[in-house]
């Protein structure tokens, strides 16, 4: 927990510096006595840096033996697999579209969630995305993406 906190607080201090640097590029005020566009970002830069520094020094005081909330590695396999599937789906979404991309994504997530019966996986991974597709198209008049490759 201590190492995590120290690492994260250093990252946040670096981010505050970067944010401050980007703020210097904002246009200054053009009217007298009017706080300009960089006004709020400057306040936030100072606050973020200060709070991150307090966190950093506070983390140094934490005993290195203190453990935070952590899950066993085998429990994290499923979320990591799901995130991977999510990422692949999002990358392919503009090319495959909602239906062609959504059906394998749904099937993959069913597998990750522990479903092992092929008829169930086939039925639900087709039925649910199709029902949602038509619900949005016919019921809510929202056209979901069809995909560049299938257009």
């Amino acid at each position: 927990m201590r190492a995590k906190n120290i690492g994260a607080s250093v990252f946040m201090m670096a981010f505050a510096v970067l944010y401050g640097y980007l703020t210097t590029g904002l246009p200054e005020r053009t009217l007298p006595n009017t706080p300009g566009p960089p006004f709020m970002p400057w306040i936030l830069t100072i606050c973020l840096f200060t709070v991150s520094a307090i966190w950093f020094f506070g983390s140094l005081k934490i005993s290195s033996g203190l453990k935070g909330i952590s899950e066993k590695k085998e429990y994290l396999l499923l979320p990591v697999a799901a995130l991977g599937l999510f990422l692949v789906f999002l990358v392919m979404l503009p090319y495959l579209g909602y239906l062609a991309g959504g059906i394998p994504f749904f099937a993959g997530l069913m597998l990750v969630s522990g479903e092992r019966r092929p008829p169930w996986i086939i039925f639900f991974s087709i039925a649910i995305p199709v029902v949602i597709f038509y619900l949005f198209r016919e019921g809510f008049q929202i056209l979901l993406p069809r995909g560049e490759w299938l257009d």
Partner: protein
Amino acid sequence: MNLDIYQGFLQAIQPTSLLGTAIGAFLGLTVGMIPGMTISAGIIIVLPLTFVLPPAISISLLLGLYSGGMMGGSFSAILLNIPGTPSSSATAMDGHPMAQRGEAGRALGAAILASFAGGLFSFICLYFIAPSLAELALQFRAADLFGVVFFGLTVICSFAAKSIVKGLLSGLIGLILVTIGLDPIMGNPRFTFGDPNLLSGIHFLTAMIGLFAIPQLMENLIDIAKMGGSFHAESSFGRVFPSLADLKLMRLPIAIGAFIGTFIGILPGAGGPIAAFISYDYAKKTCVNGGDFGKGTIEGVAAPEAANNAVTGGALIPMMTLGIPGDPVTAILIGALLVHGLAPGPLLFMEQADFAYTIIFSFFWANIFTFIIALSSLRLLVKVLETPKSILLPTIALLCVIGSYALRNSFFDVYVMFFFGLLGLSMKWLSIPVVPLLLALVLGKQLEEHLRVSLTSSKGDVTVFFTSPFSVFFLCLSLLSIAWPFISEWRKRKAAAAP
């Protein structure tokens, strides 16, 4: 009768609005009772469906979901000893022992009736308090409004029970994200890096879908890895409606819960779990059977259930009159109203008073429908608990993607949603609370606007914030809100040190 009240009432009893409320209540009861699904996540998933609906139907549906979700949480708390929502944690303490004794129906009936009574009481408070408070708030100037919004943000401290620093950090990240896009006063682009998608800033609903739904999905997957994908709940539980003797026993705890719940709901940041536990504790001290609390008493179910449903109406008061969210759900409701071009706050009662009353009356119907649906379809609802997560989770994931896409028909929003999902997961990993970030996303733009308008009007003189009684009042409240966690910590230490 005032014409706006009449029109609001008529709008709320339109068949389509009533249907929306009923569907919302059913969905809320379902979402609330599924362990691992919060009301916030439920509302966020349903929200994209409401974009194309008229505002009155949309808000009716969401209020139904809010009210139903609060009640639904108690079902799994009683039947499984797993609270469906954090607000129903106190209910499990007496509800589950009753179920173990074979009195599940009695406990569920008590929970349903107490929730209904708590909700109705908070509706009455909402109806009478909100318009008067909005009238007062109409006199606020920019400096006063800055005080109000600043107070709303200091609530961050109460969401950061474990670490104030982490709570503040989360809030600051939110405020920084709000600065992306066009400057609210002068219209200059800020931190857009030449990308036109960023000109309108980050849509906070996209951010919320990612922040709430993705970490929730991952948590559920961890649960599956630990203990499997579905629950088994007993669906035969005998008589549900309380007997006359039970009704007599429940009178006092319901009254306690309704009062405490409504009051705590009005306080930004306190929320359902706190109200439920305070009511439980107070009922324990005042009821005749107080000594039996924790062993399965009907009063121990009634008090927290009345309280957590009373919180809903209480939380709507600051949301509607001041534009300050009382809890995460009302923050999402503000977002839903903004999508429909309606800004909650004092002007809502002036410019769209009929719609403000539509919200109030829809809340009334939400409680009625939740009560009727809960009583009539309890057995069916309990079956939902057995829905395999292998179907539920992929459906939620798909709805998250569609929801963020449907907002502006843009893939960019889908990627932003995923980014916020990863941010939410990282924050969870570092034990940084997400709610302060959410509050900052909701209130950040207003905070900057009111601050800069006040300073411009006073020609840069900061004393403008200390010249109005309203502004001073809210700044003092803000100070108290910031100092409160330190004071309570000091009191705890003092009490522990005392012999």
